[in-house]
């Protein structure tokens, strides 16, 4: 059993008590909601005649269903319009802060909460979305929940949970050229498996993460769930504090000093005990791309696809299924595979530093003729900042479309979808069958820079070879 880790400290501090079942009643410091997983929860509390207990601790935005081309209301999709209206009504009725489209603050829930300083170290954060693990980048215990649990947080500001074990994932060393936070987390998932993290919180430690900026750390923590870990976190440090300083909801004045002291105190102790420790060397990781239908089916760009004979027994069946679905052959290189669609965005890689890096490579190039490429900023603020820096011109000149903020083709609940068996190079987080809106659609996950390389060459490419 872990002891003295940030996870233990934050868990203990937020424990209300032990429920008759033996589960812990855990206080939730920040509750984020969006239009997809909350309407039924509001209906449930309405049915029970319950009022929201701490309306000021819940913050709402709309992200999954928003169109990225034309956001004029009412939305063309009447179902999407019904959902946004439900959220407007529910937040108004319950006195919950809501960042609607065109507020200047709307965006993907996991982009806006950090950028406004809502996400802070030492908090417990829950949201009806599995990528809530993103907020762990700040040293918060953050995890996704279902709709009945959204109901529970609205009603009691608490959840009934079983404590997780803690695995320290230590990565040390410098990142090689062309290797990003995305490659690190894809590599970790590849090595530990999609269910390796079930029952665990992941603590990412080591010099590689210490040197990352907050947006890179968010990319890493974001995909913890793809490795089965419901939450992943990084101990807060000077990088965290500098990011938070002066943000809208960050403490100010004397409170700031008080906060920094407290944030320092919740870091994992030097002699903390972990349930498991795994170590990687950053210099061994190269640009990584997924080839299959689970995020653990990835390879370094200079490797060939695995052969069935070379795979462990347990991985064979899903590999056979993946080769068939992806129309790929075992043992072949992935590099050179023609691409139809390129997507830059999502809660994994839709932040300003992602767009800056992508623009750096897009500049002076043209998207290949047969490729549809588009950039979806993670939030209205990201879009505004990118435009202030002229990044949109770089993308537009190169032949990318420049869109309005939202989740977009990460999960294709809005009109942005693959068609038929189109194959995408995508900076998002899931390559599941049908994930990007077509039942035969195929997804290759990679870093934003690698998506740009694929867009320019019209095929899977190595960013290190793009001149």
């Amino acid at each position, binding site marked *: 059993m872990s002891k003295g880790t940030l996870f233990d400290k934050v868990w203990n501090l*937020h*424990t*209300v*008590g032990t*429920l*008759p*079942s*033996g589960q812990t*009643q855990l*206080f939730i*410091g920040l509750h984020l909601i969006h239009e*997809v*997983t909350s*309407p*039924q929860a509001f209906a449930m509390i309405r049915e029970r005649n*319950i009022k929201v207990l701490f309306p000021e*601790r819940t913050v709402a935005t709309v992200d999954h269903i928003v169109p990225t081309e034309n956001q004029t209301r009412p939305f063309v*999709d009447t179902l*999407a319009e019904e*959902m946004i209206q439900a959220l407007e009504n529910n937040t108004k009725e319950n006195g919950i802060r809501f960042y609607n489209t065109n507020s200047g603050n709307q965006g993907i829930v996991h982009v806006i909460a950090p950028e406004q300083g809502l996400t802070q170290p*030492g908090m417990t954060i829950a949201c*009806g979305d*599995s990528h*809530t693990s993103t907020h762990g980048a700040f040293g918060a215990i953050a*995890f996704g*929940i*279902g*709709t*009945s649990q959204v*109901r*529970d947080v609205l*009603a*009691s*500001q*608490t*959840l*009934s949970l*079983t404590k997780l074990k803690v695995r320290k994932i230590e990565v040390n060393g410098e990142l090689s050229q062309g290797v990003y936070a995305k490659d690190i987390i894809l590599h970790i998932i590849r090595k530990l498996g*999609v*269910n390796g993290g*079930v029952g665990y919180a992941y603590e990412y430690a080591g010099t590689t993460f210490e040197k990352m900026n907050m947006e890179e750390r968010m990319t890493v923590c974001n995909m913890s*769930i793809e490795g*089965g870990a*419901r939450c992943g976190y990084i101990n807060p440090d000077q990088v965290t504090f500098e990011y938070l300083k002066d943000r809208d909801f960050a403490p100010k004045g004397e409170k700031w000093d*008080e906060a920094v002291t*407290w944030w320092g105190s919740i870091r994992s102790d030097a002699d903390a005990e972990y349930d498991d420790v795994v170590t990687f060397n950053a210099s061994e990781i190269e640009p990584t791309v997924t080839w299959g239908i*689970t995020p653990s089916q990835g390879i370094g760009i200079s490797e060939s696809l695995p052969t069935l004979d070379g795979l462990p027994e*347990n991985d064979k*069946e*899903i590999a056979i*299924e993946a080769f068939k679905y992806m129309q790929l052959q075992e043992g072949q290189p992935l590099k050179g595979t023609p691409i139809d669609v390129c997507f830059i965005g999502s809660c994994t890689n839709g932040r300003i530093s992602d767009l800056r890096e992508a623009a750096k490579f897009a500049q002076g190039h043209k998207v290949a003729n047969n490729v549809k490429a588009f950039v979806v900023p993670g939030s209205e603020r990201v879009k505004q900042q990118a435009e202030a820096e002229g990044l949109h011109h770089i993308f537009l000149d190169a032949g990318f479309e420049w869109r309005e903020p939202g989740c977009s083709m990460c*999960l*294709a*609940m809005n009109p942005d979808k693959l068609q038929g068996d189109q194959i995408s190079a995508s900076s998002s987080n*899931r390559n*599941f069958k*049908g*994930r990007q*809106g077509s*039942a035969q659609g195929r997804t290759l996950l990679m870093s934003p820079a690698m998506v740009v390389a694929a867009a320019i060459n019209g095929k899977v490419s190595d960013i290190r070879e793009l001149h």
Partner: protein
Amino acid sequence: MSERTIITGSGIPLIGNDIDTDRIIPARFLRCVTFDGLGEQVFADDRSAMNGKHSFDLPQYQKAKILVVNANFGCGSSREHAPQAIARWGIEAIVGESFAEIFFGNCLTMGIPCVTTSSGNIRSIQNLLQENPQISMTLDLESLKVQCGHYSSTVKMDSGARNMLTTGKWDTCGLLTKNIEEVKATATKLPYLSW
């Protein structure tokens, strides 16, 4: 809330590891403000791809109550729409090699037990259900056993979750709202709530 101790009925095998919640209920069906109607859309794309040969389309499994799955079932998105769709189709319990955590939690809040057993036991049960779909299955949460015809195996479940089901206390909302004073007391200990 009623106690969930013994679930009896026919079973339905669903073969495959890492079946994610996007496959259980594709995202386009999440464009809704209630869970009504999700039962018809469960596994929509997989079923369409299999042209009527998906377990959920085979006539012999139409009245099944116990779903038998392989490893890491329900991984991916936290959407409760996934277990809601499975439940609305008629499933009351799931036996598998392993489950993704959020999916497991979602099932628990709906009163649906997800129990685990070895991959060998799962394959045996799935084979039995394929050979004889009419065979009766019983999941007993008290003795932690699953019976499939004459085949019996032990199953596992987190004790807290099991207690909630067997004592009928899986309505977490009811339990959590009983302790509002303690919740407020905990809030006063959190420095950031006053910043």
